């Protein structure tokens, strides 16, 4: 890893230089909610945010996405490369993107996702956890890769970790804005990280989690929570690793149609429905349990399908808490 320092007074100029790359999206506060929006100036952003409602997956797997256009009976390919910058991504969301990468870039790669991923510049930013965060338990509180530049706040500026060749080139082009990192900066960086590590309030016990859950298939806890759950699918929408999509064709006029993808949720009854009316997950209990199994699946090469961002808890209208459900399921085994 290469470390450089961005002094506070150069921050705005550095930010402005990114516009040469493409549109810049950053965390913007609207009402009580943060979301990634296109920004022109630093002051439009709120960099001290906890989490946006929709994670950065919305740039790569869009909520609604026209993938193909039908003209004269033939599909026209809709793959486009438009460079853009996502400024201020937290490490849990960077890990979320890495899990999506595993799915969407696996052969045969999804060409839309791939094109967007290749044209995105990811600038990470350090954060302090709130009452919902449990990324530390899952090892996603710190990103070692998956970004171009990562900014860690220092008392007088930012310690910048350079995570890719492209990040390096951007730092290079703006060489005059950066300084060498001093021992004092490193000490500040370490102190901040230590303080941050201690401030997590929520902890997921992941010891043998996959096996434990598998054994607890018939635990009454699933039923208890499935009864509270409203099956609204909010948790799916806001999850940085949920990626189920539905496809539908839509006619625009008599001669043209589009094929559109949109987010789907495993809480919807139609998720497991096949032709002829058979449903492989007919009850809410089946669907509720399925989501927890999907999120707790451990892929040896990509980790858990959950990054501990806390969105599903914050945006659950029924107040169901991910860690609490898993802890109770574990408890029901003993």
């Amino acid at each position, binding site marked *: 890893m290469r470390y450089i320092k961005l002094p506070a007074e150069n921050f705005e100029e550095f930010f402005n230089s990114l516009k040469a790359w493409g549109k810049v999206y950053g965390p913007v506060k609207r009402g009580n909610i943060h979301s990634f929006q296109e920004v022109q100036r630093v002051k439009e952003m709120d960099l001290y945010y906890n989490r946006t409602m929709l994670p950065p997956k919305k740039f790569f797997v869009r909520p609604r996405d026209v993938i193909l256009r039908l003209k004269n009976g033939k599909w026209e390919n809709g793959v486009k490369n438009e460079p853009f910058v996502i400024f201020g991504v937290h490490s849990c969301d960077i890990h979320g993107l890495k899990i999506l990468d595993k799915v969407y870039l696996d052969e045969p790669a999804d*060409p839309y996702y791939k094109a967007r991923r290749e044209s995105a510049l990811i600038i990470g930013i350090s954060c302090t956890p709130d009452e919902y965060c449990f990324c530390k338990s899952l090892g996603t509180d710190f990103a070692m890769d998956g970004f171009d530049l990562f900014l860690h706040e220092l008392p007088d500026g930012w310690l910048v970790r350079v995570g890719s060749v492209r990040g390096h080139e951007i730092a290079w082009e703006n060489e005059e804005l950066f300084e060498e990192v001093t021992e004092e900066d490193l000490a500040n960086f370490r102190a901040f990280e230590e303080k941050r590590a201690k401030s997590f309030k929520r902890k997921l016990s992941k010891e043998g989690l996959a096996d434990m859950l598998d054994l607890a298939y018939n635990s009454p806890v699933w039923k208890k929570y499935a009864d509270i759950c409203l099956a609204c699918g909010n948790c799916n929408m806001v999850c940085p690793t949920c990626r189920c999509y539905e496809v539908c064709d839509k006619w625009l006029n008599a001669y043209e149609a589009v094929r559109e993808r949109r987010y789907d949720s495993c809480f919807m009854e139609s998720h*497991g429905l096949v032709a002829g009316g058979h449903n492989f997950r007919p009850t809410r209990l089946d669907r509720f349990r399925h989501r927890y199994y999907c999120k707790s699946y451990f892929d040896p090469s990509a980790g858990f399908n959950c990054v501990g961002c806390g969105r599903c808890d914050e945006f659950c209208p029924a107040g169901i808490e991910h860690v609490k459900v898993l802890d109770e399921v574990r408890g029901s085994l003993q």
Partner: protein
Amino acid sequence: MSENPYVSYDARILEVKDLTPREKLFTLRFVDPEVGERFDFRPGQFVIVDLRGFGEFPISICSSPTRRGYFQLCIRKVGRMTKFIHRMKEGEVVGIRGPYGNGFPMEKMEGSNLILVAGGLGMAPLRSVLWYAIDSGKYEHIWLFYGTKAYEDILFRDEVVHLLKHGEAMNCSVKLAYEVESPSCIYLEKGFSDRVCKGVVTDLFRGEEFDVNNTYALICGPPVMYKFVIRELSDRKLSPGRIYMTLERRMRCGIGKCGHCIVGTSTSIKYVCRDGPVFTYWDALSTRGLI
């Protein structure tokens, strides 16, 4: 096949044949001969049929790869899209992408006995195996156990009756179980009293013994059927690794992206479209929710 895996290729409908009141057999050929040449599949694989502007649906290929130049799809009219394709005529063009999925491990099973157990529409993917096995002549003996509702519902009736009569010459024994009595069934039962009976597909196992060390079972049918067929096979001590079954799930993309066909729990998650649709019984024992 294409740079964009979601783009389908034109395939022309060469023939449409009524199999039953609900099912039609579509014979297709790719318009671009080069695409047709590249299109190679294994029995048990499926394609996604693209009715441009209306939607897509997955369908398993029911013809054998030994018969080149065309492929066949047996489509039951159950929904909006299948209704649409049922109205299509010879000469019309649909989009096809694929083949997808793993298919049956035909090479691995060479030299062994095959027991094909089909229930209803499950006959379609197994027909691909059946003709592949007969055409290639690389298998010891082939049994086809076919359970159907009524005489009118027998898919590929001509072929089934032909194999009932002449199958032995091709190393193939067919047994048929029907549920609804009709004059045709009774006539068939009289003609082949040892091989046609009223009942369900598991009744066909009665009195049959297999060399479990040299036999593979291949199953396809409605979800409820698997448990009972597997019980019959397990009673005869056929190893879970020798029982193959092909499963159905909602599949949108066919390539493991859209997430609809995910099954399993935290210890083992499988995409039916990519890791299947053919699984062994062992997979089902180690992946909850598969059957």
